């Protein structure tokens, strides 16, 4: 028997690491990867709550999150390819078209 709080704290750890990686990393692909990590952490809380309350709705929600994450990854990576093609860099410090 594992208390639900353990799963939630594990998810909180993964989410915080994702936030830290999102803020620290300078490579746009790695930033995108850390967004996926945060999505996974939230999915873990959904599954833990679904098991705690014996409801399938939480699992359905995770299913939809997965679908949206797949769509987001496809579009986001296409945007990254397009950025690299025009600016020849993946460093977010140099992608500042809207700043100047």
């Amino acid at each position: 028997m594992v208390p639900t709080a353990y799963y939630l704290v594990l998810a909180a750890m993964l989410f915080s690491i994702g936030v830290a990686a999102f803020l620290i990393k300078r490579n746009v692909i790695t930033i995108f990867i850390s967004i996926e990590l945060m999505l996974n952490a939230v999915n873990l809380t959904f599954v833990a709550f679904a098991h705690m309350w014996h409801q399938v709705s939480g699992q359905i929600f995770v299913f939809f999150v997965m679908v949206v994450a797949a769509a987001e990854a496809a579009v986001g990576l296409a945007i990254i390819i397009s950025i690299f093609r025009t600016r020849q860099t993946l460093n977010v410090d140099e992608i500042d078209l809207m700043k100047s």
Partner: protein
Amino acid sequence: MQLALFIIFGALALGGALNLLFQRHPINSALSLVVVMMSLAVLYWSLGAEFLAAAQVIVYSGAIMVLFVFVIMLLNAGEEERTHGSRAAYAVGIPGAAAIFCLLSFVFLTERGLGKSNVGGDLGNGVDNIAAVSQMLFTKQLLPFEVTSILILVAILGAVVLARKEQ
């Protein structure tokens, strides 16, 4: 049994996430994320979500991460260099993430009912679980399910349009 699975694969997921944070090359970060996703799939299975465990392996670590690795190799992404912005990000990012973690775990551990309630009963029959999920998905949630198919279609079209070479 469940506690052992939780400790082993929770530690594996945490180690993978920390490795993602500390590696400098994007391909190493992507492969660490695969480790995190596979261990999360085991945790889903131990929580009685067999369908989601399979979908996690197939969709996340199978499809999405292959896409990431393809793009990293296509763009020939190298190690990231330290810049002025990255030092500022270290100064802000680590305390910020630690504050978020403290807030979340404080809520999770003090909220009444979460700390005391054990994760319920037996693991449940796999077939029953998938039957329940699909019954919910194809009756009550049919409209959202169909809308997601349109979302996927739009995403495919958008990806093709964005990544296409400009004429």
